[in-house]
């Protein structure tokens, strides 16, 4: 399924990722989100979560380091997600997303297993 025009604008330079797992991630987060939230913001927030998940996977965070081009795409995913959140999310959600990435990267640096990324981000999306 193609991204909606709203999402398409946020996928500049990341278009190829949509069919390589980003779309599945996005739909998965969209389904977990509270239907009480602003319906116009939900897709953007779900995309922000999906970008984090795909971004850290591209980087190889917690596993074998990705080659430079994949790392840079991963970095862009995280940065794009962060910018989408500043445009669309409450401060609580922005902070919760950052804390989720801090937890995952801290676990990776320490050689510990972090909580599943999807659980962490689903909780971040629900932050109040």
């Amino acid at each position, binding site marked *: 399924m193609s991204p909606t025009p709203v999402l398409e604008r946020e996928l500049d*330079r990341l278009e190829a990722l949509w069919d390589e797992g980003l779309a599945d991630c996005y739909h998965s987060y969209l389904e977990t989100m509270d239907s009480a939230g602003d319906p116009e913001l939900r897709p953007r927030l779900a995309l922000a979560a999906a970008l984090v998940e795909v971004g*850290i996977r591209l*980087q*190889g*965070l*917690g*596993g*074998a*380091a*990705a080659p*430079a*081009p994949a*790392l*840079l*795409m991963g*970095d*862009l995913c*995280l*940065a*794009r997600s*962060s*910018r989408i*959140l*500043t*445009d669309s999310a409450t*401060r609580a959600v*922005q*902070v919760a*997303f*950052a*804390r*989720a*990435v*801090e937890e*995952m*990267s*801290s676990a*990776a*640096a*320490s*050689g510990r*297993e972090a*909580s599943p990324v999807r659980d962490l981000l689903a909780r971040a999306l629900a932050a109040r």
Partner: protein
Amino acid sequence: MIATRLAFSTAHPTEFIDLTERLRDEVRRSGLTTGRIHLQSLHTTLGLAVNENEPLLLRDFMSMLERLAPGDATYEHDDFSRRIDIALDEPINGHAHCRQLLLTGFATLLVEDGDLVLGRWQSVFAVELDGPRERQVAVQLEGEFAHAPTLALPRNAGEGTALVELELARQLMADPDPVAVPMRRLLEAGGKRLRPRLVQLTAQLGPEYQPLRTAELAAAVEILHNATLVHDDYVDESTHRRGRPTVAAAEGAERAIAVGDYYFAKATRLIAEQGNNNVTQTIAAALEAICEAQIDDVGLRGAYPGDRESYVRVVRGKTAALFAAACASGAQLSGASAEIVEALYRYGDLLGTAFQMADDMVDFSPMSGKPVGLDIKQRVLSLPLIYAAEDRSVGPEVRRLLAGALGDHEVAQVASLVASSEALSRVGDEARALVEQAVEELEKVELNGLRPTLISLARSAVDRAS
């Protein structure tokens, strides 16, 4: 109010960790003279206690905890067949939770005359009940603060610099060692701290200027910058930065990726927690521009050395975007007018581009303290090299050498050709012209007497040898 975290490792299943001296250090560093220090355990199996640090007494406490909640008793919490959503590494620790209930998770201590108010025999303990583990205690200090930072600072550090250094140290103290140690090494190795300096200067232009809040933003911007450097060094396969091994070289690519991500996230969180959405958006946009430019930069290495247009596009993203954001966000934080914010953004953009051009020239200076031609060896985009490759006399030879493998001999030859051409003076002229354009931006707005400082900072950023 100052907030921080005390991080520590425990070594035993049950252990009393005396935090008293660390808390005294926190009070001294913060400059708190009269007030309170609040502690909160961030774990359900870590308690807090104020009592006597006498080894036999501590053994008595452990025995008492063992009697009241024996480790070998049956706890429903440990019956995983009846629990839902348990983690794979869920420990058997019902006894530890029950013991924590007998202690407290919170404590408030008084501070007077810049020191903890404690009786002769009183010590403050974190009580590990399910170790060994990595632990954190949240700490908040509130009350009357004297201006008394106690970090080792450069001799000529001004008040603002001191605050930023203090804030950087404070933030890293709260972080787990696997990420904090490499980042501390990078920050302590130096760096010009231009971006935080810009935040601090421009924050003085609005009606809501607050030095401590400004130092928090300035430190977050510096952390963000350093986080991008950690990833850059992996991408560029750099072995040294600021005279020390890079994180990737010293601790491996996996650690470097994690450290970069951690501090990228932490910096964005610190900025978000300040609650100024204009600032958050400015920094987020800069970060996105940096990442896009990095991708372009690596993409252009196939057509090395590239052309001026591509160079400027990459540099405006990679370097100037954060300079511009630093200038604008400081002003935004203090509530400066949109006119001032926009003028400062343009000033930062021009200054950042000029700064990078000057940085490229340093690569050809034997006075810089760095090996000459490092950028060439790593095929990093460089304007002097672009101009030398376009030069009528040396250009063909430069292009021929760059097309082949670049050993030390070839790099030295290219560097010598660049130095013998007009490329360096051309880049220097261009950088100085950009600085003058940046200065012109400052003429358009009222800057409360800060104009000379901003002008001097811009000129010195370009006229440098290292």
